[in-house]
């Protein structure tokens, strides 16, 4: 941190950050470097080709001449393209009022970044030969906020592109700079332990890192920070919780194994669904299972590899005395010991800070 950015001052991180942000807001708009190339037909053609935009007013001189603009114009959503810094970012060392705020957040462990809003206003379309100049203004900081990704600050800035002195477009851009959650390591499975997620009644999907942020047109530091985006998931597979299944997962979180029950005819069903297959009632409730069952069928999964766990593991269909069957992993015994009719009882395994999965372990018959 360089002198004058606030790090040398006293106070908490939040106070120092807020003070820096206020000073950067006071700086107002800071002009960057003009677009490396003037607005030109080859770049427009390349863009419309890749995007699949067939509008002839962007590329066909004849159509453009007879059209509403009277000449070729660039697609308005291209505005940021003109001031992108290129592969080597050479000669693009002008800093913006946003840079050191983002840097201060990085240095304090708020290394994650995800873009949340992009708002562009087009005052007019730009023409061939114009050379837009971006100017960046720090617009605001809010936080700390607790978000799904972790505790963080929302940072907002504006970019205005000028052709000469005339503003042709403005953009509001907002990112969340967050402190990635610390992950508890899932303990490595014992040699004979199966450590896997059940597969029903939900779909598994990898926890998804968010989109990286678009960059401000000219601050290389900002770009670097944003390239580091992508928070890593604590445990790579998550149940897709929806209105049909959320009662099940709320139960799991409380150590209850819940079975959906038709509020019309009383029939139990699993996996959960919106409508009773017997009486077609959409009214539903649930009961809490006793937590015991028997292996009805099973497979030992050796291959292919599954993210976040060791093979082999057992995926079983467990028949409950309540009359439904559930898919889940059998754990705490060697896969060779698992067999049809094996008595099991449910257990709950904490996979990370947020996720608990029900699994099955051997019980005395």
């Amino acid at each position, binding site marked *: 941190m360089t002198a004058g950015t606030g790090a040398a001052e006293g106070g908490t991180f939040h106070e120092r950050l807020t003070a820096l942000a206020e000073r950067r807001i006071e700086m107002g708009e800071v002009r960057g470097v003009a677009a490396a190339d003037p607005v030109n037909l080859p*770049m427009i053609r*390349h*863009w419309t*080709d*890749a*995007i*699949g*935009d*067939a*509008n*002839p*007013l962007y590329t066909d001189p004849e*159509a453009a001449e007879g*059209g*509403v603009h009277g000449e070729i114009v660039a*697609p*308005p*959503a*291209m505005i*940021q*393209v003109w001031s*992108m*810094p*290129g*592969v080597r970012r050479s000669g693009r060392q002008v800093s913006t009022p946003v840079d050191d705020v983002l840097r201060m957040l990085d240095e304090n462990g708020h290394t994650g970044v*995800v*873009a*949340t*809003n*992009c*708002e*562009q*206003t*087009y005052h007019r*379309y730009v023409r061939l030969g114009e050379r837009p100049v971006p100017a960046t203004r720090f617009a605001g900081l809010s936080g700390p906020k607790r978000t799904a990704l972790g505790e963080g600050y929302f940072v907002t800035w504006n970019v205005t592109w000028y052709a000469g002195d005339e503003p042709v477009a403005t953009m509001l851009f907002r990112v969340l700079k967050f402190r990635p959650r610390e992950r508890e390591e899932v303990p490595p499975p014992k040699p004979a332990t199966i450590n896997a997620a059940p597969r029903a009644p939900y779909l598994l*999907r*990898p926890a*998804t*890192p*968010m*989109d*990286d*942020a*678009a*960059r401000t047109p000219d601050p290389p530091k900002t*770009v670097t920070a*944003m*390239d*580091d*985006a*992508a*928070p*890593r*998931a604590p445990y790579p597979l998550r149940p897709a919780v929806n209105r049909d299944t959320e009662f099940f997962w709320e139960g799991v979180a409380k150590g209850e194994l819940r079975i959906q029950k038709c509020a019309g005819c009383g029939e139990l069903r699993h996996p959960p669904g919106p409508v009773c297959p017997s009486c077609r009632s959409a009214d539903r409730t649930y009961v809490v299972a006793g937590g015991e069952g028997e292996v009805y069928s099973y497979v030992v999964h050796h291959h292919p590899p599954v993210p976040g766990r060791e093979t082999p593991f057992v995926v079983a269909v467990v028949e409950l005395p309540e009359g439904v069957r559930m898919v889940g992993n059998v754990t705490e015994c060697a896969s060779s010991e698992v067999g049809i009719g094996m008595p099991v009882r449910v257990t709950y395994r904490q996979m990370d800070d947020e996720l608990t999965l029900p699994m099955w372990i051997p019980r005395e018959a």
Partner: protein
Amino acid sequence: MRTLTDDEVEIGAVLPELTIELSPTLIVSTALATMDFTSVHHDVEGARAQGSKDIFLNILTTMGLVERYVTDWAGPEAILRGINVKLGAPAYAGDRLSFTGAVVSQEGDEFTVEIRGKVSLGDHASGTVRLVLPRR
């Protein structure tokens, strides 16, 4: 290509859906055409090293596709005044991006279209596009 005139568009009009297959070629060609050379948009290994499952669409392209979606419907003479989007789930290579939209308001000569671009993980981008149509 004909452009809709202002009297032809009513509040509540629904835009035809546009589905875009997110091939690696599309992700890479649009990243380069928007001058975005960040590795997560062209290098699978680079993207995975940063915790993504694959390369994914960059934001400048998202803005471009939103523009295209609305002008494909409105016609070439429509003039865009602005695009506001909230950014959500990443649009990975191999996925499919489906745009839906509807005209939600008119103020003076300016129409507002609400759009939503969905991928398999949820909303990739959702928001509004403001545009002006030629007078009849």
